[in-house]
């Protein structure tokens, strides 16, 4: 075999090792008996059991789940409506709006986070906690949803909407019965991206969470400041598994919709 192909193979293997090594280390050390989770000292499942008993972790985990779920629902709904308007309506400043949608993602997270903090404290009567975290997450993920769904809309044949209307459906019914189902892979894709993002978010959540409202990433951070703990490895492992599952689901949905010729 030619040296070129060997070179390519070696580079690919190295790249994969580089990407996966940290992940594998965390997974392996979550089963290590070492008290700090930084060395291998024998196989054990004790840290997993310890996690089940830790109330603070469960508290933080549930909070993260709730926030992520609400964020996904609201931002995909908002994202779909926004994408619909941006795609179909003609108005002045449309191009400007379309590009500025990406602003929250493009700006450094710390900047967005501190701006939101000031906004919540000074401009709204809200106290820092669930509502502010959720709003902040929605601000960040809706542009992502718009982006993904808009992309999907390029592959929608709008003749379908006209055909549905011609056959007796109002625009809303046409959306429910035809455009919606066709957009579903895009909406599902957006959801599959937003859920892990919201669940994993640290910077913005840390700024706007206020006192006593920890999400899981914030909890992990606070634990690490007191010295490393194998529980962190365990949480990391579970995180990774969950994210992998979400991505696989996304790819499955995409594959099925492509098979139907959409």
């Amino acid at each position, binding site marked *: 075999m030619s040296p070129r192909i060997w070179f390519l193979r070696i580079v690919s293997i190295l790249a994969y090792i580089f990407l996966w090594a940290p992940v594998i280390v965390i997974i392996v050390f979550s089963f290590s008996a070492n008290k700090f989770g930084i060395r291998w000292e024998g196989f054990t499942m004790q840290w997993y059991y310890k996690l089940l008993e830790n109330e603070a972790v469960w508290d933080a985990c549930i909070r993260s789940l709730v926030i992520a779920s609400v964020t996904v629902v609201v931002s995909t709904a908002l994202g779909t409506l926004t994408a619909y308007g941006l795609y179909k309506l003609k108005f002045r400043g449309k191009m400007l709006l379309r590009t500025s949608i990406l602003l929250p993602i493009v700006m450094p997270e710390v900047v967005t986070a501190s701006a939101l903090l000031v906004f919540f404290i000074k401009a709204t009567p809200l106290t820092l906690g669930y509502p502010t975290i959720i709003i902040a997450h929605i601000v960040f993920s809706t542009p992502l949803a718009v982006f993904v769904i808009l992309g999907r809309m390029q592959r929608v*044949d709008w003749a*379908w909407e006209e055909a549905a*209307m011609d056959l007796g*459906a*109002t625009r809303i019914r046409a959306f429910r*019965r035809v455009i919606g189902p066709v957009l579903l892979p895009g909406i599902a894709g957006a959801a599959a991206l937003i859920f892990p993002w919201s669940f994993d978010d640290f910077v913005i959540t840390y700024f706007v969470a206020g006192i006593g409202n920890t999400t899981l990433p914030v909890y992990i951070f606070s634990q690490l400041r007191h010295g490393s703990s194998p529980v962190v490895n365990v949480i990391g492992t579970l995180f990774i598994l969950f994210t992998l599952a979400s991505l696989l689901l996304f790819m499955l949905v995409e594959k099925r919709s492509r098979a*139907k*010729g959409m």
Partner: protein
Amino acid sequence: MRKQAMPTTKEPVTPAVEIKNVIKRFGTVTAVDNMNLAIKQGEIFSLLGPSGCGKTTLLRMVAGFENPDHGEIRIQNEVVNHIPPYKRECNLVFQQMALFPHLTVAENIAFGLRERRRPPSEIKKRVMGMLDVVNLPGMENRYPHQLSGGQKQRVALARAIVLDPKVLLLDEPLAALDRRLRKEMQGELRRVQQEVGITFLYVTHDQKVALSLSDRIGIMYEGRINQVGTPVEIYETPRTSFVAKFMGGCNIFSGKAISINTTHLEVRDEHGLCIRAQTSKDVKPETVSGISIHPEMIEIIPGDQDLPSSDSIFNTIPGKIANVSYQGDFTELQVLIRSTGQKVTVHLNRRSDNSMSLVKGQEVSIHWDSCHSNLLVG
């Protein structure tokens, strides 16, 4: 009570669709320019014209996807200008078929019926019945991506017809099909229309399809109707030079007309060439802009043969063969008229003109009866 005598004359039948003084503009472009048209119940009416002539815009206005800036559109005498497409009793067969990809064939056809909240048993019966009408038995559970082009077209047709519309609108539905399939589907369309009796409004740029499919044709150009008539009328007696050119192949001689006698007139072009045509008392010579003659109506008289005696009802013009092109079922000749520089196209039929052997450069005369000359106005 005394019985009244039945009227001997027929009452005027309501046209299926009426376009009255309709104007539609897009910015500075006038797509439809003061159009008037009446389509009869149960006929296949084709709107024929080149791309950009406004025919699709007109169709979309009848369907309800565009609103006229001025004028009225009536479906069965009801003004529909402001009725949204989902409430109008007409249905559209799209050029790209637009079948819903996530629904089966049966679900596609049932779509409109479900919107009307018909009971499931009725829906099932009508869908299966429609599959028979369009000749697609057993396909009810297939998905659109599993169908061929012709099959998709039938499903699109079935989906529209099952709703029993007052008029069926078709937007060049055969354009996406290859030639053989197009011929087959033409026959299918005609058969289905005769079976269900719905008025068809068919939009196309293809002259051959329009000629073979329609009961009447309306030629459209730059937002206006140029001529309306049966396929025979449109092809054999085009009224304007646009229609003559658009229907293909016509030779046109433009010029001023003067009467010779009560039955004939003569058109003289800029080079002094005179062409004779039959006329009637309704025709005013000053309105005539020229004469057209179809290539298949012209005879070729080889140069060495005697010309027929000078008879005022024939046209005989000397010229030279500039080109010979064998087309299989006919041979196409280009004959150069030396006095004017004009090239006249002549089609020689294989069956009747086989005895002639003609070569490029040969001296010939073109010859036709003036009753075949077609008068053009405008």
